[in-house]
Every structure is written in C-alpha cells, then in structure tokens.
C-alpha cells in the first residue's frame, strides 16, 4: 500500500496543521481555472459526500451557470452518525480543504466561499477558523463559516444552500438545482470537504489521487478513520481497525444510505467508488459498519429505520408518513415477531415511498431497507418476538 496523500505529513491526532508546515510540505497554492477543471475531468475524481458525482463535470456545470458571482460551499456537516472522516480532515488538515475551496472558487468564478461545519463539531470549528486566520487577506474576505444544525438532512445539497441562503436547513424542491440557482440566486457549488482536499492534492501533482478516506465502525477493536488506497479490499480496512471484535453477521457498506453485504462477500470488496457501483453497491460517505453476530439483524435494522424516519424534514407526506410506517412495521417485526401482513406492507410501502419526496432521503432509506430485506431475508421472515435490544 503506498503512502497516504490526504493524511500525509504530521500525525492527524496532533491536531491542526499550520499553514507554514502545509506549504513547506506541499508547495504553494496552484492556480485554479479551466485547466484545473479539465484535469479533474481527466482524473475522474468523484464526490466523497455520498452521491459520488464526477467532480469535473459538476465544476463545468457551475462555471457555465456562473456569471462571475458563483458561491462555493465546502460541506463539512457530516450528518451521517458514524462518519468521522470529514471532522478528522477539518481538525488535522484544514489548509488542504481551504486550498481546495479556493481552487474551486477560482475555477467556477466564485466570489464567496462558505465553510459549512456542524454546529456541535467544536474542534472542527476551531481548527477551520484558526486556519482561516493564517490565509491571505483576500481569501479571508471571501470566506465565512456557517454552522450546520445537527440533523441528517442538514448535509443535503439543497438543505445546505437553504441554510446558507435563508437560515433554515430544510431541503428544497429541485429544479432549480443549486448548481444553477443557489445562494442568493447565484450558481452554487456544494462539495464535500474530502473532495476538496483531493482537489488540493491533484492540482499540485497533476495526476489522480489514489486514496480514499474510510470510517470503520461497529464491531471492530479500534474503530476510526483510515486513508486507504482505492481498490483496497474491505477486509484489509477492517484489519486496520483492529479486525472484528466478534464474529460478523453482516457489513453495511456506505453508511445508512448504503447496502448490506454478507461477510464472506464483503471482505474482498474493493474500496473503489467505480468498482462498487459496477456491483450495484456504493461507497457513499465511506462508512463501513460491522454488525456482530450477537446482535439481532432485524432489531438493528429497525433501530436505524426509526432514526432515519425521525430525520425526515416532514415537508413531504410520502416521506414523513411512509418512513414512519416502514419503521413502525420493522419495529413490530422486531418486537412482536414476524407477521406476513407486515412483510407485505413493507414491500408495498417501499414502492409507494420511493422517488416521491422532494429530496433523496426517502429513496436512500428505501434502498437501505430493501437491501436489508434481501440480505436478512430469513431473519425477517422468521423473526421471533423479543425485547428490543439497543444497538
């Protein structure tokens, strides 16, 4: 495995890397612009926020819609409960992120940069605002920090734009997409902080980065964030986290909007966004969660469903009522045992909910549930009644 790229340099646990050291290690900030966008297209960098959209294409689109007054939002909200990578980057490599944001601003002709950071993520806040004081006068005037409410959908692109623009972090109807009309009606680029960090490296080396940040969580001995080579087998990443602490029932790949995979299949999965997509999976926000065999799979799924249902912004009926109904049905199966009516209801309601919200929240939840019902088919079909176990 070759050297880390984003986390290269001083140990991340030592805190925020100062500007002087950052520049000494990596060189000065390169120029953004059309050439950089084309470079990003060639390298095939995809977003690390969850959607995995090609970065170069996104920047091209925003540049086209921009009339010299676009807005760049560095999305570090990290609403996914088990993800830690964005916070780690913000607390240890703030200048990488700021570099990426500045390169984006120059490339899409933006005059404003917003750092969108979880309001409860104090260390990240301190680190990013501290790093900001070390930047040039020009950069400091462009950048402001906006605190994200601690909710799951607060990191959604349109919710991010809505919060920055109007002070309320609820998703909005698209079209128009933020790329075309975002903050103050201007073209807005919303990009995950890890993606921006990759851009900062790519702009200096001229070639693709070949690493990705993964958060390993759940039944492992040393959960944490690891920078691994793209294509590393999932099992190797789990070993970096100290290996499984007990036998594994299943692996959740990609966080709460990801898919469940049986351990035997999971260990050899390449941690590569493109390769995973080819197999019908998704790296998402890079969370790999191990569920121990001692935990009841149905109860785990029901707990996550309850959480995701409660995180609906309650703007669209099908999402709010549908997810609640799905979560309730899962909980009934978990607590009172399998009922064929509930299994049918889960299928019917999943079909009714999918694609019928203003944002992707209901879709993500339905895909998570469908994956669970496929992977834990037997568990769902023959679940006995027992007391709800906490995760």
């Amino acid at each position, binding site marked *: 495995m070759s050297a880390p790229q984003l986390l290269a340099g001083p140990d991340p646990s030592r805190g925020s890397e100062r500007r002087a050291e950052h520049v000494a290690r990596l060189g000065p900030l390169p120029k953004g612009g059309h050439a950089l966008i084309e470079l990003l297209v060639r390298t095939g960098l995809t977003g690390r926020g969850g959607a995995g959209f090609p970065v170069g294409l996104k920047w091209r689109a925003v540049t086209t819609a921009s009339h010299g007054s676009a807005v760049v939002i560095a999305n570090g909200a990290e609403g996914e409960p088990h993800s830690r990578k964005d916070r780690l980057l913000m607390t240890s490599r703030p200048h990488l992120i700021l570099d990426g944001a500045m390169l984006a601003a120059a490339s899409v002709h933006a005059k404003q940069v917003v750092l969108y950071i979880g309001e409860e993520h104090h260390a990240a806040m301190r680190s990013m605002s501290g790093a900001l004081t070390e930047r040039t006068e020009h950069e400091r005037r462009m950048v402001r920090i906006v605190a994200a409410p601690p909710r799951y959908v*607060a990191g959604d692109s349109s*919710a991010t734009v809505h*919060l920055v623009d109007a*002070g*309320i972090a609820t998703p909005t109807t698209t079209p128009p997409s933020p790329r075309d009309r975002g903050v103050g009606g201007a073209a807005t680029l919303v990009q995950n902080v890890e993606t921006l960090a990759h851009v900062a490296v790519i702009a200096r080396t001229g070639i693709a980065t070949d690493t990705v940040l993964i958060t390993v969580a759940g039944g492992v001995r040393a959960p944490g964030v690891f920078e691994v080579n793209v294509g590393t087998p999932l099992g190797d990443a789990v070993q970096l986290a100290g290996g499984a602490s007990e036998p594994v029932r299943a692996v959740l790949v990609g966080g709460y909007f990801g898919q469940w995979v049986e351990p035997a299949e999971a260990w050899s999965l390449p941690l590569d966004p493109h390769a995973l997509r080819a197999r019908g999976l998704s790296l998402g926000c890079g969370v790999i969660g191990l569920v121990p065999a001692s935990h009841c799979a149905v109860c785990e799924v029901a707990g996550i469903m309850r959480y995701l249902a409660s995180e609906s*912004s*309650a*703007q669209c*009926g099908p999402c709010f*009522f549908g997810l609640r109904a799905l979560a309730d049905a899962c909980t009934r199966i978990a607590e009172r045992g399998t009922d064929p009516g509930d299994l049918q209801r889960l299928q019917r309601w999943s079909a009714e909910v999918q694609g019928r919200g203003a944002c992707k929240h209901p879709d993500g939840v339905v895909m998570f549930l469908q994956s669970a019902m496929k992977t834990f088919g037997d568990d769902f079909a023959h679940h006995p009644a027992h007391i709800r176990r906490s995760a």
Partner: protein
Amino acid sequence: MNNSVLWYTTRGAGAVSLVLLSAVVVLGILSVLRVQTTGWPRFLTVGLHRNLALMTLVFLTLHIVTAVVDPFTHLGWLAAVVPFSSYYRTFWLGLGTIAFELLLAIVLTSLVRGFIGQAAWRLLHWLTYAAWPFAVLHGVGTGTDAWSAWLFTLQAFCVIAVLAAIGYRFMTGSRDPLADARSSFQGAVDRREPR
C-alpha cells in the same frame, strides 16, 4: 323606466349578493377544512366556491348599476368607486363600496393566481374576512326595509351560517396532517437571527 323596478331590482340584487357571498365564505371555509363525502368530492366545494363568487360579482354589478341609475338615489358613478362620497346614506353606502372593491380585488387576484403566486394570492384572500362583514353592515345600514321580516330573516340566516363556519374553523386545528411535524422540524433547524 319605472322607478320602482329599479328600486326593487337594487334591493333584490343586493339581497341575493349577500346570500351568495355568505355561501361563498362558507364554501371557502369548507374547502380549507377538506370536507368531503362519497357523494360530494372536494373539487365540488372548490368549484362551487369559485362559480358562486363570480355570480356574486354579477349580482353585485346589477345591484350597483341599478342603484346608480335610479334617479331617486341621486347617486353618481363616483359613489360606486369612491367610498363615503355619496350624499345618500354616506357611511353605510361607503361600507358597501369598500366591500365591493375588496371582492373585486379578491376575485381578480384569484383569476391570475398562477401569475402572482400562491403566497401573494393567499395574503389578499384573507381580505374576505373584511369584505363580508362590510357587506353585511352595508345591508343593515342602507336598506330602507332592512328591518322588514323577510330581509331581516335572510340576513340573520347568513350571519349565523358564516359565524358558525368561522367559529368551527378556528376551533378545529389545521387539517394539514404534516403541520405539527413540519413546524417542529423547522424550529429545530431554523438558524435565522431572532428579531
């Protein structure tokens, strides 16, 4: 033209306008309350509400035109558009003028709702709660036979029906099943500066 015909038409059209307007207000409230039965779909409430509103304007126009044209009242056309400008029963007639103009504004904005947008339309539509009482008071104050049995009964019936509907509306909560959850979530993610 026989003066009595004009006079009777004015009063008759006025009474019909009041009945129609009251029905329109009640139907509007039933629409917000999402009232429906197997035999009465929601689009019927909305459709009747709109059609009766247009009919109200027709009868109102008849009421105003016959009143102005009638030589007995000495009303000029100005009185139909400028409130409190008539010599005849200045105050009570003025209320009617205001009611008419409010209704005109409400109906016209409803016809172009697609252009002005839902928010602006809704704001103007609240004026209904000003237009209706003005119309009632106008009827009570200007009608020479306002206290005749038939007209009194009619007006009482209209007032009771509308007040009952309004009372019911403000006693029941929002019929939007998402209202509570939505405002509670919004409250949790609202980061606007407190005023």
